[in-house]
């Protein structure tokens, strides 16, 4: 329910950034409204923006204060594992990292999504096909150790990257329900387990 209310409120709001050109924004809104349709699980309301999405939709990033405000807000969305266990099975984590499927209008269900991690990150010693939109995470656990603060930060980053960088390119895997808690635990194991190819040659 939380999401729906947010969306409804936002549709009506005209953000400050557009104050200078309300006509232009009205035209843009009309264009977006007329140009998209619902197909499969990709409903038309996906085109409506959340407030931070809107703030991060310009050529330049928002002000530092605005970024900080968004980050504080997003930080509140992070849910840490209730059982206190952060690590699943790194082998399953590797599969999730490789899998870039999910949530498109050609996907049948909104479940069983991949993490698509390799689209943007280098992760393991043996996978040569990795993207560079995000930083290399090679030897993530090996170089960072597994102290509690590192583990919790990493969980938070996977759960909602916007809590640490308001306009991060990284999806909110937990907050936007892209991955389940269990899947994120598998990814954590993939990143931290000494036996995982992320850390072991």
């Amino acid at each position: 329910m939380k999401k729906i209310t947010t969306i409804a409120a936002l549709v009506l709001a005209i953000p400050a950034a557009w104050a200078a050109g309300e006509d232009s924004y009205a035209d843009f809104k009309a264009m977006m409204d007329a140009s998209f349709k619902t197909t499969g699980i990709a409903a038309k309301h996906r085109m409506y923006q959340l407030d931070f999405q809107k703030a991060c939709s310009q050529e330049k990033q928002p002000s530092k204060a605005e970024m900080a405000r968004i980050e504080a807000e997003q930080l509140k969305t992070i849910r840490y594992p209730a059982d206190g266990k952060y690590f699943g099975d790194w082998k399953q984590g590797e599969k999730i990292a490789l899998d870039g499927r999910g949530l498109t209008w050609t996907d049948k269900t909104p479940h069983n999504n991949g993490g698509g991690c390799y689209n943007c990150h280098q992760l393991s010693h043996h996978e040569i096909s990795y993207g560079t939109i995000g930083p290399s995470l090679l030897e993530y656990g090996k170089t960072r150790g597994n102290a509690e603060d590192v583990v919790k930060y990493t969980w938070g980053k996977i759960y909602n990257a916007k809590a640490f960088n308001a306009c991060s390119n990284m999806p909110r895997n937990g907050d936007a329900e892209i991955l389940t808690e269990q899947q994120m635990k598998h990814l954590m194991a993939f990143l931290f387990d000494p036996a995982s190819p992320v850390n072991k040659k």
Partner: protein
Amino acid sequence: MPIPRRLKAAVMLTALAVAPVAALAAGDKMMDAINEYRELLADGNPSELVAAQGEELWKTPRGPKKASLEQCDLGLGPGVVKGASAQLPRFFKDTGKVQDLETRLMTCMETLQGIDPNKVINERWLKGERENMAALVAYVVTESNGVKVKVDTRHPAMKKMYELGKQTFYYRAGPMDFSCATCHGDQGKRIRMQELPDLRTHEGAIAGWGSWPAYRVSNGQFWTMQHRLNDCFRQQRTAEPIYGSDVTIALSVYLATKANGGKMVTPGIKR
């Protein structure tokens, strides 16, 4: 050798800025190998097969009016195909709209042949009239291969479309918070092994806009620009853009304007 265009220099330069040193050497070798692969594919682009069908279709009387498209005005006068797609999108007086190649072809199909545009708009990719559209597009863009992009941005409607396209480019939405700029708003990035042109720059825009439509080897399909943009939105996890809708025209105007003056290599051949 039509392929080397964007790749080598851009990739290597930008890789320097991103990757740690150890990964860099391996990455360079990888990209060299991938570039070798692409060069081997450049000669013998199956788009030629599609273009040949398109040329035949262009000349074939079809539709309720049993007319060919030979009198179609793509902006350079009735029947002029050579160089036409390099100057699209443009504002057309007769329709009062900015049109890209595909929406303009729909206009011609409707006015000359009596074919209902909805037969294209509501069809699935590479089926029925959309398959015909792809063939026609392959033919038309082949006739602009090697020509410089030259879109006329002076008309107010074009200016407006550019601005709308720019807003769309940065518009983040959907469950993954992606915009076009997420992947195409930085230098030298890639998704897995696929380099991403920085579409904010002229070089990036010509690498992207200038080499689509293209044959995609991964699925053996010829993709028009509408198809390309549609799949970008699919991967962004947004809702689906309607075929030929203004958002697709606006983005096309934005990209084509950025690419202005660069050389078209169409149809391209892609992964």
